[in-house]
Structures are given as C-alpha cells and as structure tokens.
C-alpha cells in the first residue's frame, strides 16, 4: 500500500523535472564528437584522399558491408578506385574506423540517413568522401610512410635518413 502511494508521489514529482525528450526533428539532439553515425572518408591536411586502399576496414567489418578496389595514381599514391559501403547492412560498430591505419574512415555524429528505398543506402566513394580531416586533424599517412610518392622522395618522410649510397664504403 505504501509503495503504491510512493510511486504515485514520485511520478507526480516528475511533472516539475526538466524534460529529457527532444522534440525531434524540430529540436536536434546534441551528439558527442565520437558518436558513431554516418561513415565518411576524410582527407589529409593537404587535401589529398587519406584512404590508401589497404582493405583493413573491409576485413574488420563484421557484416562485410565495405568493398573497395585499391589502385595507384601517377604520383605513386594509392587510393581506392571505388569504395562502397552498404549502409543497409552497416551496424555502426566503428570497427572500420578502429582498423584504419590512416584515419581515413571515420564515423561522424550524424544518423539522419533514412531512405525510402534500400538501394539508396548503398554509398559510393562520391557519397562518402568529405572535404575535411574529420576528428583527427593533422595526420598525413604519407608523411610517415616509407613509400616514395611524387613530391616526397625516399628519405623525405618524418624520421628518415637520406637514402643509402650503396656504392659508399665508408663505415
């Protein structure tokens, strides 16, 4: 009997509490930066595509909804020829982001992806690539990788010595 009355009293008090319900869509929910929503492919500080087509995100994806083909451009940079995410399968687990060695693939705080047709949920590279560094500004994979690309020769990367002169006999 007492507990009944207590419950009623508590419920009554709630009338005076601050409301938790958002009047979505008029009112947007504030999402933390690390919220796992829409997936994007970001760019490095120079504006180049970050993704090097290493396939790690695809391998990490538990529902196998990422598929891509890597290729190389004239400057020696690797990039995905196509990059496809089937969002109708994606479970937004963020494993791809965790696997990505270049910070290219990132989950963004945006969930407004609903479509009337499932086919529309298949995103290609054009739909995924954004003009931003996303959550990890400053990182540029090619600046630390040992592979030479146009404009960054052997020895030009961070922490690299100039290439060895194989003809030298000096100690």
């Amino acid at each position: 009997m007492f507990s009944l009355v207590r419950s009623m009293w508590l419920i009554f008090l709630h009338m005076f509490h601050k409301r938790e319900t958002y009047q979505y869509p008029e009112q947007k929910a504030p999402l933390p930066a690390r919220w796992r929503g829409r997936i994007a492919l970001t760019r490095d500080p120079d504006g180049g595509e970050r993704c090097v087509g290493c396939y790690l995100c695809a391998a990490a994806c538990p529902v196998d909804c990422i598929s891509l083909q890597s290729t190389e451009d004239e400057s020696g940079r690797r990039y995905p020829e196509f990059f496809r995410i089937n969002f109708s399968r994606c479970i937004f687990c963020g494993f791809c982001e965790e696997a990505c060695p270049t910070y290219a693939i990132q989950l963004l705080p945006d969930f407004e992806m609903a479509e009337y047709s499932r086919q529309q949920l298949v995103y290609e590279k054009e739909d995924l690539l954004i003009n931003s560094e996303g959550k990890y500004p400053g990182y540029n994979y090619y600046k630390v990788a040992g592979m030479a690309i146009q404009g960054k020769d052997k020895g030009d990367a961070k922490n690299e010595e100039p290439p060895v002169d194989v003809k030298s006999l000096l100690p």
Partner: protein
Amino acid sequence: MPIINIDNKNYEVKEGKNLLEACLSLGLNLPYFCWHPALGAVGACRQCAVKVFKDADDTKGRIIMSCMEPVKDQLRMSIDDKDARNFREHVIGWLMTNHPHDCAVCDEGGACHLQDMTVMTGHSYRDYHFTKRTYNNQYLGPFLNHEMNRCIQCYRCVRFYKDFAGGKDLDVFAAHNHVYFGRQQDGILESEFSGNLAEICPTGVFTDKTLKQHYTRKWDLTSAASVCQGCGLGCNILAGERYGAVRQITNRFNAAVNGYFLCDRGRYGYEFVNSDQRIKTPMVHHGPAEQSNGIPILEHVHHRIVPGKTIGIGSPRASLESNTVLKELVGADNFYLGVSAADHDLVSLSLRLLRQGPVRAASLQDAAAADVVLILGEDVTNTAPMLALSVRQAVRRIPVAAAQQQVHLAAWQDAAIREAVQDDKGPLFILSVQETKLDEIAQGAWHTAPDNIARIGYAVSHLLNDTIPEVTGMSEQGRDIAATIAKTLKSAAHPLIIAGYGGGSEAILKSAANVAWALHDLGIDAMLSFTVPECNSMGLEMLDGHRLESAVERALNNGVDTAIVLENDLYRRLNQHSADLFFSNIKSVILLDHLYNITAEKATIILPAGTFAESDGTLVNNEGRAQRFFQVFAPATAVQESWRWLLQVAAASGHTTLSSLQHLDDVVKYIAATYPQFDGITTLTPDAHFRLAGQKVPREPHRYSGRTAMLANKNVSEPKPAEDEDTALSFTMEGYRGEPPSSMIPFFWQPGWNSVQAVNKYQVETGGPLHDGNAGKRLIEPNVNGHTPFYTEVPEPYLPLKEHLLLVPCYHIFGSEELSIHTPGIAARMPAPYLLLHSEDAKRFQVTEGHLLHFMDNGHHYTLPVIINDTLQQGVAGIPVGLPGMQIAEAPQLIKV
C-alpha cells in the same frame, strides 16, 4: 629415432634435421626468417633462438640458433624459456628499427611473414626513436616490384636467386648496416624464376607486380587448387580471384612436382583469363546468340551436327574431360587430335617409349635428385622451365655428397656446404642445336644439328650395350664425346636422360630411350624425362585420335560438314595454307574457346569456354601424372567448361551415353570406366559428396570481406552465392575450417601463419609431402619386366647443303606459348621474329645481322631479320616457334633459300 625434450616434453624426431625443422615438423611455433626448407640454414637472421640445456639439472642453459643445431638424442631445449623469448622479441625489435611504416600500402600485408613473426614474438611497440635508414628502389622489369626499405637482411633472395636458381643479376651490395639487395643497376631481372622472389622474400621488398595492377589482399581472394597451363610439366598452382578477375598465381606445394617454386611463365601467364579478347557470350555468325532468330544456342549447334559428317578436333590445352566428351560426342572415328604433325609424332613416341620401355619417367623432384644428367636436343629452360631448375639442383648432388663426407655436416648447413663445394658441379652433358642457359653449369655442352645429336645418343648407347649397332662415320670429336658421356653414365646411380619436343626430332627421342634402357640393363636406376609442349599434350595423346592432317584431307574430299573445334587455334597447328583449305571446305565450324583468334574468325558458332580458372578438369603431365584442377570462381557470364557445353549439346541431340552425364564426377567416372589407360583418375580428388564434419571446403578464407557490398551497386539484396555441384568445394567462406585433403587445398593458412610459410603446417615434415600425400596420380608405369628391342636406325649425319638451310625450332619461355603472351609483361619480354644463322652461313647468303632473309615454305613467304649465332652448326638455322603473327614453319625441315 632420436628423442628430444622440448619444454619438458619428449618428442620423437627425425635424424639429420636441425632443431628448427624438428620443432616446425612437430607443429610447434618458432619464428624464423633466413631458413627455408629448400635453401637450408645459414643462421643469418638470429630469429630462431631457443635455449638448450646440458642436462635435466642445467637451469641456466644457453641460447643457440635452432636452425644451426642438429638434432641429437636426449637433447633438452626450450622454446618457451623467458630468455629465449626475450631474445627473439628483441631481434624483431631491432629488425624493425628501420622498417618503414608501410603495411597499409605494402602488397605483402596480410600475407607477410614479417608481420606474422612480429606478432608471434610479441614485439608490439617501437621503442627506438631515432631516424630510419632508407634506400632507393630499382626497376626490376614487369614481374617484380622493389621496395628496399622493407628489407630485413635475411639473404633469402640472393640465396634463392643466385645459389639455387643460378641467376647472375641479383646480388647484395654495400656493407654493414647498409646492405642492399638488388641489381647492379636498374633493369629487368633475367632469371626465368625471378617471380619466386615474391614468395621467398619474407617481407614486401619483392612483390608480384601483376598483382599490384589489381591489388587484392590474400584474405580477399577466392582461390582454388589448380594446375599450371604454361607447359607440359603440370606444376601445381593456386589461383586467386576477386571481382571476376584472376588476380594472382602462387605456388601450391607438391613434393613430387614443383616443390616450392614456379617459373615466371607459370606465375605470370594467367592474365589471358582477364583479357578483353575473351569470348563471353555464345555467338552465331559473329552476332550474339540471343539475337539469332530467337533459337536457343544449343539448337543452333544441334542442327549442325550431321551424323557421320561431323568431326571433333581435340586440344592439348583442354582438359581430359572436355576432350573425352568431344570424342564420345562425335565418335572415335571422327575425333582428331588438334596438334601439329611434329608435336603429335614426338608426343606419341614419348608416350610409347615410357609405356613400353623399362625405364620410369622422372618427376621434377626425381630429376632434382639425379646424379648425372644428359640432355639431348632440348633447351630445357625454354621448353620445360622448372625442369631446368631441377637440373640445377641435380648437378649439386655429387659435390654436395662429397662435401658432406669432407666436412661432416648435414646438407642443410647451406653456407658451410656451399663453401666446401665452391663451384664444383656434378656431371651434366648437353647436346643441343645452339647454346642454352644450362651450358654454363655443364661439364660438356656441344651444339650440332638434331640428327647429329641423335647419332651421339646412339653412339653412347652402343658403348653401354654392344647389341646396339655402332654409329659409323663418326668424327673423332663425336666419338670422344660419346665415350666421355658413356663412361660417366656407367658410374652413375640415378642418371637422368632428358629429351623432348624441343629438339623436334624422333631420332633424338629414340636415342635417349636407347641410352636409358641400356643403362637399365646394366642395373642402373636410370630415369627418362620427355618434355611435351602443352599442359595436356600427354593426356590428349593417351586418349588417342586421328591425325589433324587427315581431317584436312577428309574436308577436301567433302567428308566434313561440321567441325567442332575444342579450345584450339588451328592456325597454330597447321600452316596457313592447309588451315585455310580446311575452313573453306567445311560448312560450319563450332568453336569452343576462350579468346578471339584467327580460328574464331572462321567459326560459325562460338561457345564461350571456361579457362582453367572457370573450369574443373584433369590434365596429364609429361610424366603421365594426372592432376585435377578446380574451378576458381563462378563467372557472371555464359562462360562454362567445354565439357559442360558439349554435354548440353549431347543432351539436346539425344546422345545415348552422354545424356546421362551431368557433373564432373559423372564425366570422370565415365572416362575411367571407358578408357583403361585413365583408370584411377576417379581417386585424384574426393568427389562432390565429400564432406568434412558435414561441410564443404570453402574457397574463401574466413576473413573474406565485402560480401554484402561488392554487388550492392547492382542490387542491394545480395544474390544467392553460386553453388558448386561438381566438387566438394564451396564458392563462399562458409565451410570446414580445418585442413582439407591435399589435392583440394584452396590456400595455405593457419592461425598465426598468414604468409606462404603456412605450408609448413600442411606437411608431414618441413619440406616433406603434404599430410595425405602428394596430389596427383601417375598413369604410366614402366614396363619393368618386358624388354623392348633397342632402336637401331641411326640417322645419317647432317652436313650443310648448298643453297639450303636446316630449320630448327627455337622455343622461348616468353613467347612460344599461346595463352601466356596475353600477359603484357610476358609479351614485353617476347623476342621479335628472327632467323638465327651461323656467321659463315650469313656470309654464304650475303647477309649480316639485322638483314632480312627471305624463304618460302609450303606456299608461305617468310621474311625474317637475321641474328648471328655461332653456336649453331653451319647449315642450320634457328626459327622461333609460336610467336604471335609468325605463321608456322615446320621445323626441323630443310628449306631452300
């Protein structure tokens, strides 16, 4: 057998091995880099450290390199010891101080031994904060990519390339911590076995350049066990596909055939599968079949099959299944072997010699174990490349055995043994029409016309057995050569005689058989190796059929309405004149093939036939070993196996026996039941009902990615995956995860072993056969008890003739094979047509190098630039075989210039 104690457990191990081999053979995980089962141990990388103890009371122990320590009874060691583990972790840590941050863009990634070993040792954090050493890369040709920064200085590459494969243009340069593995300067790697560097190198320094063009990680490949289509040796391969294209060929270990290696034609010759010349839809009169009056394609075919007036032309590059079904469909009387007259004569003779004679055919590994080798008329490096690699091992047998006696060390002590051996070579004798690459390791290499080679062969056999008539009219030099060879052969234990299609002469084959048989009569375990031109040349010959020339004759006599041509370009089998005549005298041509070619232009109906990657089938190699190859992927097009097309045609026309056959197993059973010579091919692989723990064997690794996205651009609902009704393999990643039977292993992978090195885990012992035996079954056994009479018709010596030249065939590893030249890298290394002349002959015909020489053969004009080669006998001219655009000139033959 010695017992050793590892981490307080006793294990029985094999005598003569090193501790690393013993541990790996026991299935224990122990990291290593520089040791390789085929190359032995040098103790260079310091990765395989373990601790050994004096006795059970010794708690301190000492760290040693397990690859350098032989197995000893009662030896106590520890892999798990803390010091040993620390040591190994630190070694990797040091190797990594200069290693680039490259895995994401490194083609080795996901199949990288360095990654695996790093994980295995537990090294995970870089605590070295100084700068990294860098190197400039080199251009190494169309097959290999070079990225020197990733090198860990294990020396495997040079040990394979120089020491094992006899290459000269890859070496180690510079000194101390700057050593550089590469060429003296940028340039194409010359060795025919260079592609193996991609597998031998445990890191991403050398990677497959053709794979890079359409890069896919190992875990993303749909793979299947297959057999190389590049030549008649039948090396075992793994073929991997992604997005409908074959992406990579890697070695499939077979302890009896190719071991750990492949030649570059085999590794890189796959790109024809992805060619834009592929025939993908059925065509009627060169228009897509569906637009052809709405009649189903099989009706078109069926209408044209007139009983008694339809012939079938088989193919040495089509499977046994396809050839047999065609033979049954048209009837044995109407089945012709689609091979040139010369190839037919030589291969059928080889088959006869192997079947009737008492001497066995050597497998590639038998060949590598031979102690004396005699090559008659073959340029093995170009006609059967991997046999050349075996010969390179064979010449080391005697010196290695001697060195072992001298320094009392096991053969795997590679550095010490090589030091003791120096440049010593065992006996190898070569008689060929011109200089060959193996000459450099031969004790004697002589160059002369095919008939003269045969004469020396006969002379040798006469010296071994005097019931064989003496060769009369021999020169002094010829007699000396024969005497030297005969003397050495007599003292051999396992001599190998090599001959084959490359010499272009039946007399050479017969003389080779004579030599081997005479040795056999002396109680010596002789071996024969006859090379054959194509992957199923031997199988086709065993199936038997009429000669191709008689098909042409029959067509000229109006005996043919329709010819069903199986996977064949008749313009490579007949000279242009005869082929034209043939096609103009028949009403319809039904062609089943992969690529558009001149024959396809003549075809009335074209059925898109699956290549090895889209087909299941059986091939018989030069030693008579039947081997199964499995379909790699299900094509999205109308492409299917030739035998399936033919079965469907048979069903449409109500053929009695064939109508009941449907799947691979049905066809295989039918072949085995109908042709006793193919008895046993049903046991090559488990049948389609085979299951492991109730499951099929998956073609895709468990990490295969992108299943729900790769086709989503077409339709977001994934289609049902293709089902394989022909075999116990599935096209998906679902299925049994353990080790499949050796004949159907689709990829080598074991937990913690992502690279090719995982093959250790599939072997009975390191370097030994796979767990349930080597795949394949020999169909030809020697007639040990019978005695075939020796051949006695010694040919007349060849002497230069006025105004004439003797054309002899010159084969090229890159260029002479029909399909592999569709790989751009191989096409780039193919020679341009030429005519090889001795300088005296050049003078005689008043030409110099580069000049065009003109001659006529069979109504066809040939104008070829001259190349001078003084290793030819005078009066002999070499002509390349099989280069595209070269109409065939029959060789050897005498031509008038």
